[in-house]
């Protein structure tokens, strides 16, 4: 039987095409940006130097906007202090000291963003703090204006954060007025998100505030996330709320990494239950 060289060539070309496409699809399904950063750890360390310089220039150009954000944050903190002062006046000094000296549920590590991707469907952020500063994988990252993401990988001086601007990430959110909760997911467009699985009988109004529910060990409760801009019925069984997020990811610079002081205990219990 004679072999047709042209046929063999076509067959080999198809096999090569399937092989290369197969490798690419496996890479897409098994690979996250964070894993890529681990592979390229050395190169990224060198690149982070340039990112820091670039970020300094960006900060210098945006410092007016940054100051406005800090002023607004200060104003909110002053209002909260004033409210708390009113309550503290009603208790004795010893009682007040006893109340505030205990360790809270959460502590925070301040960090600066040195690289922020906002252009993709799967965005990420790089922070200037790492394991040497106490950052660990799985910790949440927040600002006063909302959540930023979750730490996915940590090197001694740098952390890689999977941004909330990520189509595969969700956060447990609630409607402040009635505490009804559901997962909030980024829509892929600017600062728009949706809260899903809200029971259909729930009373929701445009302009209602959405905040974190606290039903996870990652983010503290009651961090404001955004306001409701639309209410849609899905298949007649649930509501889907369109949300405009408070957090402007383009103007991000200073963030806080959240340490849940009871996080390890919660995880241990969860693992035991599983």
């Amino acid at each position: 039987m004679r072999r047709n060289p042209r046929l063999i060539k076509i067959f080999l070309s198809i096999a090569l095409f399937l092989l290369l496409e197969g490798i690419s699809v496996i890479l897409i399904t098994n690979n996250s940006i964070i894993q890529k950063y681990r592979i390229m750890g050395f190169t990224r360390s060198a690149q982070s130097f340039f990112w820091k310089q670039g970020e300094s220039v960006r900060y210098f150009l945006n410092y007016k906007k940054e100051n406005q954000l800090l002023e607004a944050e200060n104003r909110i903190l002053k209002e909260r202090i004033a409210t708390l002062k009113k309550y503290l006046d009603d208790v004795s000094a010893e009682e007040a000291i006893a109340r505030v000296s205990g360790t809270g549920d959460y502590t925070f590590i301040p960090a600066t963003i040195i690289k922020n991707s906002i252009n993709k469907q799967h965005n990420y952020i790089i922070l200037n703090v790492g394991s040497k500063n106490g950052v660990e994988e799985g910790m949440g990252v927040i600002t006063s204006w909302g959540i930023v993401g979750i730490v996915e990988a940590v090197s001694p001086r740098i952390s890689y954060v999977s941004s909330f601007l990520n189509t595969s990430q969700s956060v447990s959110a609630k409607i402040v007025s009635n505490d009804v909760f559901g997962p909030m997911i980024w829509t892929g467009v600017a600062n728009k998100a949706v809260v899903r699985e809200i029971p259909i009988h729930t009373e929701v109004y445009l302009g209602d505030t959405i905040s974190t529910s606290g039903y996870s060990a990652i983010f503290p409760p009651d961090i404001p996330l955004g306001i409701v801009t639309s209410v849609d019925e899905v298949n007649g069984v649930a509501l889907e709320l369109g949300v405009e997020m408070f957090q402007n990811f383009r103007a991000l610079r200073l963030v806080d990494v959240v340490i849940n002081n009871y996080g390890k205990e919660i995880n241990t219990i969860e693992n035991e239950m599983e």
Partner: protein
Amino acid sequence: MRWNKNRSIFVLIAVMMVIQIIICDYIYTGPYIHLTLLPLIILSIPTEIGYPKLALISFAVGFLIDLVSDGILGLNSAAAVMTATFVKPISFITINRERNDKLERPTLSDVGFFRYFRYSSYLTLVFLVTYILFDCAGFRPASFILMRIALSYVANILMILFVSITLLNKRY
């Protein structure tokens, strides 16, 4: 002479890869537009090397861009291999067969604006459809995907024509 020509093409591809990495890392185009020079890089690889080499080079270039720029590993390489597969059939359709056999790398001045426009348009569409489907399918509405393909196509074809006229419109 041949060594010089190969070196020129290699330098050209390297320059376009650097531009592509800069586009990926530093240029914000919004969620609807994906800017890429990869179809043009594939288009500038001489077709005389044959499909296996063309596919392997395209995969390597895509993988390298995935590795050093923002994004998911495998996305650019999948789209690049798909585009490389369609180079020969599309060049047969858009540039006539006799002419195509004589050309190792069609340029705008060789085949004329209209033919070159069709040739690069189809290749860009193959690349964008593959890239955007792998990136968005399953968790993005069809309207978003179609809009992204359409807007990315317009932006990319303008950029590709500009680079083709300024950088590629000569024989190396």
